[in-house]
């Protein structure tokens, strides 16, 4: 086992693609996602305003709208057509329309209608603006009622109780800032790491066939496939663990993302994820020993992970077939373990099935050792 271990170190040091895929690219992505979303919640999203009324009321609405954290009333348009065009060009993510005569109709109790248009083609920006514009519309309506109530001699407390008898006190458990970086970076970064673990594992095994070194490797490992494989994958595991550790430190140690379970347990989950991905990588190569097919499959599995793990679009809303298939993706289990432990702070026992699944992935190579030995001995490289 000593020989393949040292030999793999030499290979990894000599070929820059290993340093790129195992350390440089995952860490670069780590930096990319956390710096891109460093704001947490996007602020000052450009919003258009079509003010046909030009009254004190309409200007008050516009001012209040601009004062929202998420909203920046970027441009004022003369009519709806212009605003729609600006929306199509991507200048604004939505616009607020105050039609002619709003103020005077409200004063005469004629119930005018204001409207807001949100472009949900940009889902994140659209949803955030929608929330604020809806709130503003409720407030505008409330302000009109309130002035009537004040005129009738109501106190502020009485007025508010009349205007909004029931209010919702919303608690976002685990991520009270609704920080998008916490929501996404925590999974995109392990996702990229997992993708590289799949690809590098398949690539390093496949190149043994490609350059006709597999048989020599087996011979020098005393003919034992297990020894050859362990010796070969151990250096890679150590480097991937190093990268994973840096990612965990960056997210929870440096950026202080919520980690209720403490750094060591999150690190343990990362270790499970890394070995799980490596195990699955070995399995992929054994089943598809052609380098191009193996790598294509590894990249397919790695990229699909991002969608099927359910972090952005929940698994429960997917087709039942996909819900079952999601169990075959290590990132899905990592996601559930992360939510369970770091975000919500429950004990690891609470999510034991996912730990077991990751362990099962890690043990997959044991199952495919005989076939892998045959592959390494007999298969030839196909371009």
């Amino acid at each position, binding site marked *: 086992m000593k020989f393949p271990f040292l030999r793999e170190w030499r290979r990894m040091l000599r070929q820059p*693609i290993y340093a*790129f*895929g195992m350390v440089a*690219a995952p860490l670069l992505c780590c930096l*990319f*996602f956390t*710096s*891109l979303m460093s704001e947490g919640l*996007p*602020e000052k999203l450009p919003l258009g305003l079509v003010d046909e009324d030009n009254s004190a009321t309409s200007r008050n609405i516009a001012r209040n709208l601009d004062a929202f954290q998420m909203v*920046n009333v970027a441009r004022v348009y003369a009519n709806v057509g212009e605003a729609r065009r600006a929306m199509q*060009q*991507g200048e604004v993510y939505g616009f607020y329309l105050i039609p002619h005569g709003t103020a005077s109709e*409200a004063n005469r109790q004629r*119930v005018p*209608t204001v409207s807001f248009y*949100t*472009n*949900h083609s*940009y*889902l994140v*920006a*659209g*949803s955030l603006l*929608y929330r604020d514009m809806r709130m503003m*519309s409720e407030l505008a*309506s409330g302000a009109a*009622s309130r002035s009537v109530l004040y005129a009738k001699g109501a106190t502020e407390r009485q007025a508010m*109780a*009349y*205007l*909004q*008898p*029931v*209010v919702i006190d*919303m*608690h*976002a*458990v*685990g991520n009270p800032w609704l920080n998008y970086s916490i*929501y996404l970076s925590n999974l*995109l970064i392990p996702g990229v790491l997992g993708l*590289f673990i799949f690809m590098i594992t398949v690539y390093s095994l*496949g190149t043994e066939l490609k350059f006709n070194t597999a048989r020599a490797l087996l011979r020098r490992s005393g003919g034992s496939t297990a020894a050859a494989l362990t010796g070969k994958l151990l250096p890679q595991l150590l480097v991937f663990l190093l990268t994973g550790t840096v990612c965990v430190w960056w997210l929870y140690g440096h950026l202080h993302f919520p980690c209720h379970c403490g750094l060591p347990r999150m690190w343990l989950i990362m270790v499970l994820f890394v070995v799980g991905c490596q195990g699955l990588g070995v399995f992929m190569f054994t089943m598809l020993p052609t380098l*191009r097919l193996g790598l*294509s499959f590894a*990249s*397919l599995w790695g990229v699909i992970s991002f*969608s099927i793990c359910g*972090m952005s*679009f*929940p698994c*429960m*809303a997917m*087709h039942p077939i*996909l819900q079952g298939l999601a169990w075959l993706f290590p990132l899905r289990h990592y996601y559930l373990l992360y*939510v369970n432990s770091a975000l*919500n702070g*429950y004990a690891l026992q609470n999510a034991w099935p996912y730990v077991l699944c990751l362990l099962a992935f890690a043990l997959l190579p044991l199952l495919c050792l005989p076939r892998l030995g045959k592959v390494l001995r007999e298969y030839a490289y196909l*371009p």
Partner: protein
Amino acid sequence: MNYWKQALSDWNHLFREELLGVFKDQGVLIFCLLVPLGYPLLYAFIYTNEVLHELPVAVVDDCRSTQSREFLRHLDATSDVRITAYCADMAEAQELVKRREAYGAVCVPRDFSRRLARGEQVAVSAYSDLGGMLYYKAVLTAATNASLDLNAQIKVKRAGGTTAEQDQVAEHPITYQEVSVFNPQNGFATFLIPAVLVLIIQQTLLLGVGMAAGTAREQNRFRSLVPFGRQRRGMLRIVWAKSLAYLLVYIPISVYVLGVVPHLFQLSQLGRPADMALFMLPYVVACIFFAMTVSALVRNREMCILLIVFTSVPLLFISGLSWPSSAVSAVWKTIGYIFPSTFGIKGFVAINNMGAPLGDLRQEWTMLWLQAAVYCLTTCVVYRASILHSRQRLLQAWQAARLRRRQLRSHSTEHV
């Protein structure tokens, strides 16, 4: 005249060779045909349900009055959530959340109806699991809608003895209308799939061209990009023949990916086909030259997969679709200008989802042509360098051979 004849015949030969290369090489075939054909279907299948409906939530009704039950009935009636459990206390609700049987909790306080009867304001607490932003959105939307419904009813009741007209004024002195444009159901597929489709074209081109280049290098005696024996045929001919061969392959693929797939999954298609074609042409051309330039970095056949695949996710974020471009820092925005997909995604989403005419996308269109021109130039430079390098190696090899032969000859004369 003879020169042009030679040029055209060379071109013809190279074009056919490249085209055959795409279809003969199974690796390239996977990326240039199989992935663009199959991948969009898989993605559309994942997101085809568009929205999250009926999220299971647990409720704690401490009040147990007519009004609190009415509030909870309103909550249950929304499309966003479904009440799966009525718990005795918050601890029980939390236990359900812990077991992932509920993803949110709503708690109606003990003094709910008493405060309403007294004419005081009352707060209902809602909790949501933040494992997914959509959980939060569902719980918030449902609770807000239920509370607004109830508020309107209470206001009317309190006003007392009024006409229907007065009720309406009391409810909302200014009403509002919410219009969700270009994605009326706020769906995930309508939002994400168009960008993924555009990205697939660029990424598969990078992979396919990169793999072909890697193979060319492996089969080449001097590990150079341009095969031995082609050097005299001129750099321009090689570049043009190759790029046109890829263009020929990618025109039907683009039509399928950008036209047929959205149709199959009933995504919005508001764009005019002519605008779409005119916009996507510079995109595909820019992608081809970009891929040919990048392919110079690929040393062996399979390496390009390792270099290219992971970039898809960052590119999706940098394009301003997942993360609003107004919140992207200047550094990342500038880096985004390198990739055709940044402009391609923005333009395609505008034309396809929002029905924008081409004239409104002048900026993106010009940038794509500019990218096409710049990457065409860099491709020429890269191929020129490769040809020169290859020629030099050939010359060296020839000189070495000549030297060896001379030495051999001198040896043999000495022996004589």
